[in-house]
């Protein structure tokens, strides 16, 4: 339970705002160069990977290396570049296409649709039961606030399937929320985008991605059509698993808090900050590991300052931690393995109606 007074929440907001302003003042050429370097590595990884897939005529190991490089390229594109650019972290560069308005990424989900469900819904209503649909993705029961249903019994299998097909899950997320194909429309959901537009974006982007990975590139390497197709499929699956795992470790670990909608009505900026800190979890690792997660290993910092360049999060983390300690706010961080273990635990625990431990709720 967290009982900060509204005055304390206000000073917390001021402190975090000052921290953001100090960092924002430092953002400049260095960050632009960093993004450019990541882009360069991503392009090189993708194209070396695609070429190495052809190496199967000499050795299957070359093919495997190709698959891994292609997956690396896709992971960098989705996590460190796409996710962060679409958050507007690099909008200050005024770059013609590396901005949150125009960027499109190598994933089945249309960037605009993702911005609505992720940037808006998830980041505004983080871990509010019933409002943040990212909490369980409408498929998994991750807290006692959800009624137990029979299908939760096998939700671990659902989880494995979701991780394998994660890009399609993300892509379908908004259409599921809007009940475009199935289910009865919800009266309390408001959307500025029509179902027709949603369908068009879903099928348009999905089709382009399918054409690219399973038709165009395999056809370009025609005698090796099947090998290239399988290579692309495998790279996509690796990317799916990686992104799903990183995201699950950011919000579904054992110690994250969930919130009730009524407690967050007309919340102050300080309360929003507090909720972001309690609803997210970090994990530790070397620098390359942070980069592969798109710096979502610093999920707490990301949720506090979603529009600051992500490469600044590791330097912000100790300062945020110090602030958290001063206000006695739990700072949920641990090794990747430990955090992931608690995620799996949570999925398994809440698949049963009984035996569920009391949920941390503010």
């Amino acid at each position, binding site marked *: 339970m967290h009982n900060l007074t509204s005055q304390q929440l206000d000073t917390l907001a001021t402190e975090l705002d000052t921290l953001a302003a100090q960092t924002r003042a430092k953002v400049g050429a260095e960050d632009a160069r960093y993004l450019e370097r990541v882009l360069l590595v991503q392009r090189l990884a993708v194209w070396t990977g695609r070429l190495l897939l052809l190496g199967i005529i000499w050795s299957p190991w070359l093919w495997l290396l190709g698959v891994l490089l292609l997956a690396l390229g896709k992971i960098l594109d989705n996590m460190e570049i796409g996710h962060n650019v*679409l958050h507007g972290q690099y909008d200050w560069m005024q770059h*013609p*296409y590396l*901005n949150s*308005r125009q960027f499109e990424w190598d994933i089945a989900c249309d960037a605009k649709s993702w911005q609505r469900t992720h940037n*808006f819904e998830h980041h505004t209503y983080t871990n509010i039961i019933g409002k943040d649909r990212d909490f369980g993705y409408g498929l998994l029961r991750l807290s006692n606030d959800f009624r137990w249903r029979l299908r939760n019994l096998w939700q671990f299998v659902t989880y494995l399937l979701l991780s394998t097909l994660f890009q399609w899950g993300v892509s379908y997320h908004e259409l599921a929320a809007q009940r475009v194909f199935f289910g009865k429309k919800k009266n309390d959901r408001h959307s500025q985008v029509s179902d027709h537009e949603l369908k068009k974006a879903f099928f348009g982007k999905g089709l382009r991605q399918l054409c*690219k990975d399973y038709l165009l590139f395999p056809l370009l390497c025609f005698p090796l059509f099947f090998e290239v197709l399988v290579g692309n499929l495998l790279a996509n699956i690796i990317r799916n698993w990686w992104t799903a795992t990183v995201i699950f470790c950011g919000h579904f670990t054992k110690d994250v808090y969930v919130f009730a909608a009524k407690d967050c009505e007309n919340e102050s900026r300080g309360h929003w900050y507090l909720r972001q800190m309690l609803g997210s979890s970090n994990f530790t690792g070397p620098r390359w590991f942070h980069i592969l997660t798109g710096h979502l290993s610093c999920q707490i910092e990301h949720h506090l300052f979603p529009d600051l360049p992500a490469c600044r999060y590791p330097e912000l983390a100790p300062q945020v931690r110090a602030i958290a300690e001063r206000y006695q706010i739990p700072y949920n961080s641990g090794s990747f393995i430990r955090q992931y273990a608690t995620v799996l635990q949570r999925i398994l625990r809440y698949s049963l109606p009984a035996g569920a431990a009391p949920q941390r709720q503010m």
Partner: protein
Amino acid sequence: MVQIQGKAAITKNQAFVHFLTKCWRWCCKMALVQPRLCSYFEPLIRLFNPGYRAGLISAQLLSVSQQQDYLHLLLKPGKKFRAFVPGQHLQLSVELDGALVQRTFSISSPLQQFLAQGTLQLTLKIQPHAGLTRQLAARAGENLFCYVSQAQGDFVLDQQRSALIVVAGSGITPVHAMLCSLSRLTQPVRLIYSYRGADNLLFASSWPELKARFPLLQIELWDTSSGPRFSAAALAAAFAALQQQKAAQAALQAEPCILYVCGPLTFSQQWQQQAKTLGILQVRQESFGCLNAADGEAVTVTARQHGRLVQLQSQGNLLQSLEQAGLSPRYGCRRGICMQCLCIKTAGQVRNELTGQISDTGAGLVQLCISTALTKLELQLDAVSTTAQDNTSCTT
């Protein structure tokens, strides 16, 4: 008939080219997830050519020289830059600390210089508060990456008509390009140029030279630091003198004269009003700078959505003002997190309510939900389409 057939054939051809371009764009979008091949490979190309930016015309900054409150930039634009009509302006983007900062400036050098040497001169006033001009002055020796747009604008001299040109401060820049590019003058032209202090007299050597070259050209220089300001009476006198000069050259056509006004926004508005009282019907004007609204004062916002242009008075939060005016901009969190309401600002200054940061006056991206308009503002609200992308990639 033949002509019509010819026209139809061209449009058919154009349609085919358009179709091919569309197919190519779709292929790029499919295979590379980017609308352009060159923007996808930009990071690789920049390894060898660090100044390269896909879709932008790079320009070499040959020299920067300061004259009191002004900077003269000598630029050599890349091959993609087509020529310009003297008097036109262009958008200059400069990479400063990783960001592309953009502002609009008039070309001040004659066309002949561009045709002979491929260079352009931009003359800009150093604004104490505006980022770009101040930074350019401070970092004059550095190797900065610059980009220019194609020249645009219709503030150009009609050589068939007599002209009364009234300019102040850096408003002289397009007029200098116009007059220096002339090869002959058949109509009387009268230039009235106000400046503050002899040090701020721009292109001082050009004026006697131009006067000697063109007998029909009259130049009045008004130094407002030592003498009086240019007044309505002086305008009337200048107009009368021009009419007299015209009358003396009875052989010339008796077409009415055009008034050209170029200067700060208040200056242009003032002389446009005066032109009406003098009975000058045709006015061409170009103004720059912006009027800073006093705290809490409403400012005019022009917003384009679904091809519709809406003008409204905005006070306080931009998103709310736009909604009150009946527009429906996209929005999300309404607290500056989600970037749903991000739109393109083509001109004007805004303040970020969260950080207190004041934007540059040029083109840029604006989060409506946390912005307040400080000056007259132009916004582009439409969600991104391919054409919008093309436009911005050229202008941003």
